[in-house]
């Protein structure tokens, strides 16, 4: 136990001291903070009150007056000016070219239908027709037409009543909540588990190639080395995830207007129970993939072989991820049960199912023991292969010799 703590402690210290770790963490945190600040940054660069886009509304047929449409200049980025003058096409063009106005909106009536021509120098990327103006036109036009028809206030209110729309699902375990949160969680879980686990393989191969192994295995047992490393890298990974999550939450609360996050994500499903379940599945998933990577890492003799040796594990992880993704997209499919209990996919799939409320208790109590049994089996195989393969400095060990080692009684 003392040795296990020593190996884990050394692994943690070395991991967090690495320049690559510090730089990548700083970049990720900077991206998060920057991401939540995009609305503020946009506001800084966008036009302020005095620099609103100047729009000239040309209403030579007095259509607006006739329909009692009022143009409101407040709460908009456009500064509207209405003229009743009958301007020619060239005159309109001139006003824009002389920068007198940024754009012109020509209102006309063709066969009892209001026609709007939006004249602008060029439609640049991101620039669109002022939608609030068009919407305002549309609403006010409808209102004035209704008024013309002589409807009472009650009749009008009845026409514009908002509908209270609710979805009621008949299946007790049917998916609820925001699919956006689930998708985000699925991606975060996959990358966190996959990249943390991958580091175990890199760490073992680095030790093999630096020939430190022989000193190491005469100082402590191979089991302690594999488990110590796995725990150490896992703690660093978890720490990374926590730092990223805390930064994201703090940034959202600090930089975004209150309530804006709730408008995008449905946070009602983020319960303490869900957080605990996610942590459990993250740790179990990490241990399973990390021990698989320990196995492939110890079979490799040279750093250039690491990629090819790790490919089978990467394929398993991707299959696991897609199974969970498919399960999320098709909540009623039968493949869900398989994805929920199959150990390569359950660490990605179960937190999502719990989040959207479609997970059954039976799936939780089945998937966790299956994962634990799977981890124990993989740990046994990995430690045995590691013990035999660590002094192999020659060529990459193939699957046949790995199976032979596992079957042998020695080591």
């Amino acid at each position, binding site marked *: 136990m003392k040795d296990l703590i*020593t190996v884990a402690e050394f692994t943690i210290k070395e991991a967090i001291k690495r320049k690559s770790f510090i730089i990548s963490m700083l970049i990720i945190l900077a991206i998060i903070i920057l991401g939540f600040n995009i609305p503020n940054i946009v506001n800084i660069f966008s036009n302020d009150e005095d620099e609103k886009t100047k729009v000239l509304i040309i209403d030579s047929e007095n259509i607006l007056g006739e329909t009692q449409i009022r143009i409101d200049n407040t709460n908009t980025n456009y500064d509207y000016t209405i003229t009743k003058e009958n301007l020619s096409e060239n005159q309109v063009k001139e006003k824009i070219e002389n920068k007198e106005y940024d754009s012109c909106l020509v209102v006309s009536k063709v066969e009892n239908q209001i026609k709007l021509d939006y004249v602008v120098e060029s439609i640049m990327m991101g620039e669109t027709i002022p939608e609030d103006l068009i919407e305002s036109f549309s609403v006010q036009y409808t209102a004035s037409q209704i008024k013309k028809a002589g409807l009472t206030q009650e009749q009008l209110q009845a026409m514009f009543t908002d509908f209270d729309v609710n979805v009621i699902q008949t299946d007790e375990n049917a998916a609820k909540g925001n699919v956006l949160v689930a998708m985000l969680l699925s991606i975060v879980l996959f990358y966190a588990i996959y990249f943390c686990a991958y580091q175990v393989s890199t760490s073992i191969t680095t030790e093999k190639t630096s020939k430190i192994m022989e*000193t190491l295995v005469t100082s402590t047992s191979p089991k302690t080395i594999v488990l110590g490393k796995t725990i150490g890298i896992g703690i660093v990974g978890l720490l990374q995830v926590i730092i990223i999550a805390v930064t994201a939450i703090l940034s959202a609360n600090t930089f975004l207007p209150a309530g804006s996050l709730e408008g995008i994500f449905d946070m009602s499903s983020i319960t303490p129970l869900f957080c605990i379940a996610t942590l459990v599945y993250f740790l179990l998933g990490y241990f399973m993939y990390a021990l698989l990577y320990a196995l492939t890492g110890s079979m490799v003799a040279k750093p250039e072989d690491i990629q090819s040796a790790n490919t089978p594990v990467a394929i398993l992880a991707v299959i696991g991820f897609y199974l969970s993704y498919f399960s999320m997209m098709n909540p009623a499919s039968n493949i869900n049960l398989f994805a929920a209990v199959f150990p390569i996919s359950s660490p990605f799939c179960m937190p999502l199912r719990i989040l959207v409320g479609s997970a059954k208790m039976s799936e939780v109590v089945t998937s966790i023991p299956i994962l634990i049994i799977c981890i124990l089996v993989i740990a046994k195989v990995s430690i045995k292969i590691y013990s035999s393969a660590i002094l192999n400095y020659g060529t990459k060990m193939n699957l046949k010799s790995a199976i032979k080692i596992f079957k042998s009684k*020695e080591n």
Partner: protein
Amino acid sequence: MGLTIENVTKTFINKKAVDNISFEISKPGVFALLGTNGAGKTTTIRMMLGILKKDTGKITWNGKNVDRKSVNFGYLPEERGIYPKVKIVDQLTYFAKLKGMNKDEAIKSIDYWLERLKMTEYRNMPAEKLSKGNQQKIQFITAVMHDPELIILDEPFSGLDPVNTDQLKEVILELVSKEKYIVMSSHQMNSVEEFCDDVVILNKGKTILKGNLNEIKNSYPVNKIIIESKNEISKLIEEESLTIKNQKDKTYTILIENKSQAQKLLEKLVKNNIEIEKYELVKPTLHEIFVEKVGEN
């Protein structure tokens, strides 16, 4: 008391790396495990330390099976390894803690050994900034800093310059004076000849010679005479039907088969009024015994 290797065998795929070897290290001092490249020295050491499992035989330390828990041993492997990016003090502390020392003990011992091997200035440097020889000295510290009773040094002098070699030899002699059991593996005979009491010579996994070094050497008759003379004596030597193995300036190394040949030559030189500055009867060196034995096998 000591290390006993009994009828140990190890076979890798279709190759017998160690074939039924036995020897005993019963008293403190340096025991030499010698052999050509690929003779089975490192495999024997790895089995002694429990890194490799033996196929047959028994390896015990004071009657108990050798493993990390039962024996406090130190090991300098042939494959030199070090964490290149990690500070010297940090990696030595890591290994010291794995060897059961607490942090304070570890730091005290590390500082003593760095001072002893004149390496204090490298204490807080990453290992990759050290020369190969200095990295090797750091590995030597890893092997001895926890004050082990059994120390196994696999090719300790390979890659060291003469100054560092002498420094390491001095430390080994100091460890011998502290009654440590040291197993030294090498294929450089002259470097171990000056410390070792007992030797085992392996060739292709088999023991071809073992015993006390002095006894082995004494069992070999004188086979050379070294004569230093200002006179030219080549002709006189040839007249006695002897072969000059080497001539450098006025020093002649002459091969003989028995002592009477040496006596006859001496009488002849005196008779011819040759001025002799040095006349020495020489027994074969460990190197020569090794080459002869390996040649026989």
